[in-house]
């Protein structure tokens, strides 16, 4: 009896308190965005299985980058190099796959496997450089990762001779990049698993708790006996490895490693997603689930504008506005929360 009464009451309480959480309002914006596109755009364009698959596929790299960025930002850090590291890992993995398979289809599985190792490993290696400079040489994350943003992109272009790398085994795109599992794009499934793993790490483990504590008050964490340097080093290795995974997803989806932009759009979108999700750049605050919702705002926006035939660049303008509005709203909400208590 008690349980039967308690459950609905708890549910009611959860509903009442939902508007008080930042995630709720970001979710409202996302749902409103989807509803608006569904109403405005011609039938059978936006609300279709095919388009849902497109959105999921487009979201996959961004989800992986945002997962890393969420963890880094909660710690009070910043990793500006993820777009460049993603580029470097994609180039390194694509070149490896090409050279291992050597044009024949006999070694494609081996090529894919080695390519994955090189992609994740090179990302982790860039992360280790960032991590060492930030955690042990005590240089500011902004400076270090601004440096590696340039260095990783330059290195990627040197490696590829300045042009995009194509010619990876065709089966990788066919059997991984474009594959679906029960209708869900495989790259999205991979991204979802990585996001869930990062979310678990962040919210359920001691490492995750330390990450929040360091971001909230580094001195308190140090006095509590937390090994700050080791934690920060591992953090940036993780961020680099995830950027490497994002690069691999790109190679699998498009069968090409692009060096033209250095994925600055993705960098900005990933950071925007995390901040739209309510994470604080001063550290200590942020939720993986909220960042995921934050990721879908630029992705859905780009998708809807594309279908509607609107200039693609409007996406950047609208995301910028949503970003600033979300942070402004969040600050106002937190200020009210504190003054009420």
């Amino acid at each position, binding site marked *: 009896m008690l349980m039967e009464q308690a459950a609905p009451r708890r549910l009611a309480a959860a509903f009442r308190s939902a508007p008080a959480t930042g995630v709720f309002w970001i979710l409202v914006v996302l749902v409103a965005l989807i509803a608006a596109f569904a109403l405005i755009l011609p039938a059978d364009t936006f609300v279709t299985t095919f388009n849902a698959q497109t959105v999921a596929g487009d979201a996959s790299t961004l989800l992986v980058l945002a997962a890393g960025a969420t963890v880094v930002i909660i710690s009070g850090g910043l990793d500006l190099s993820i777009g460049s590291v993603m580029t470097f890992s994609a180039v390194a993995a694509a070149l490896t796959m090409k050279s291992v398979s050597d044009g024949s289809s006999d070694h494609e599985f081996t090529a894919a496997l080695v390519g994955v190792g090189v992609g994740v490993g090179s990302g982790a290696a860039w992360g280790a450089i960032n991590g060492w400079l930030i955690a042990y040489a005590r240089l500011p994350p902004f400076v270090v990762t601004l440096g590696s943003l340039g260095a990783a992109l330059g290195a990627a272009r040197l490696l590829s001779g300045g042009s995009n790398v194509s010619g990876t085994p065709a089966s990788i795109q066919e059997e991984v990049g474009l594959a679906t599992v029960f209708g869900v794009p495989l790259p999205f499934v991979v991204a979802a698993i990585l996001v869930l793993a990062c979310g678990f790490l962040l919210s*359920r*483990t*001691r*490492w995750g*708790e*330390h990450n*929040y*504590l360091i*971001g*909230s*008050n580094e*001195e*308190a*964490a140090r*006095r*509590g*006996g*937390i090994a700050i340097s080791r934690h920060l080093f591992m953090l940036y290795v993780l961020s680099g490895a995830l950027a490497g995974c994002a690069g691999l997803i790109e190679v699998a989806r498009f069968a090409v490693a692009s060096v033209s932009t250095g994925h600055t759009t993705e960098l900005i979108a990933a950071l925007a997603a995390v901040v739209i999700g309510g994470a*604080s750049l001063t550290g*200590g*605050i942020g939720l993986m689930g909220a960042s995921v919702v934050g990721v879908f705002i630029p992705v859905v926006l780009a998708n809807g504008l594309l279908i509607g035939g609107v200039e693609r660049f409007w996406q950047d303008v609208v995301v910028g506005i949503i970003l600033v509005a979300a942070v402004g709203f969040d600050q106002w909400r937190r200020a009210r*929360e*504190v003054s009420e*208590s």
Partner: protein
Amino acid sequence: MHPSSATGQAGTGEPVLELRDIRKAFGRVEALRGVSLTLRAGEVHAVMGDNGAGKSTLLKVAAGVVKPDGGEVRAQGAAVEFASPLDARRIGIETVYQDLALADHRSCVANVYIGREVRRSGLLGHLGVLDRAAMTDRTSQAFGQLAVPVSDVERPVRMLSGGQRQGVAIARAAIWAKTIVLLDEPTAALGVRQRAAVDELIKNLRSRHYGVLLISHDVPQVLEISDRVTVLRLGRNAGTRDTSDVDATWVVTAMVGGHS
């Protein structure tokens, strides 16, 4: 609660921390020129003194932050040397500094268990998975026993009042300390009502047999809640008395060097 109700006569517990002839110089500044002090179980021992008298340095020596140039630190009767504050914490000496060292965005529970998180048993624990339920239960229980004025231990610390925050920091120290809690000006930044709540909490520590070393500027507070008071002046002892034997005039006179 009356000061003497819990443990009987003030200062009769066994010595838990002895500082003997402690000397410390910073460059040419001699902060401590041979200070001695004995902290007993179940007493609040106030250390008073003007700015520069050496009370903060003395606390830092006891906390393992500052290594003394000379003298001896004895804990539970044995001579100890602290290479770092972690050494002091390992033998059960916990310190609350003025900055409180609280992670504002995290809950009271997370702050109590900072760096000492409890993991689940079995495989999940090996993977680093936290046992939040256990930590929450134990924090609630401890807050209840110590009468910390915080009802919801899962609230973020930033939502608490100054007195509540001080309460969380003191309770954390008490939970992990075996015998000794060092407090550095715990009520300096608080209003009257909040100060009273913190004073109650300090008295609770005494009744639970902790030895509490209380660094303070606040003469009325010291007279109200301490059992003994040691006054420092220019890095030297200027007298230790049972608080019940002295008044504000004696303390102030000792602080400015009038009893010599």
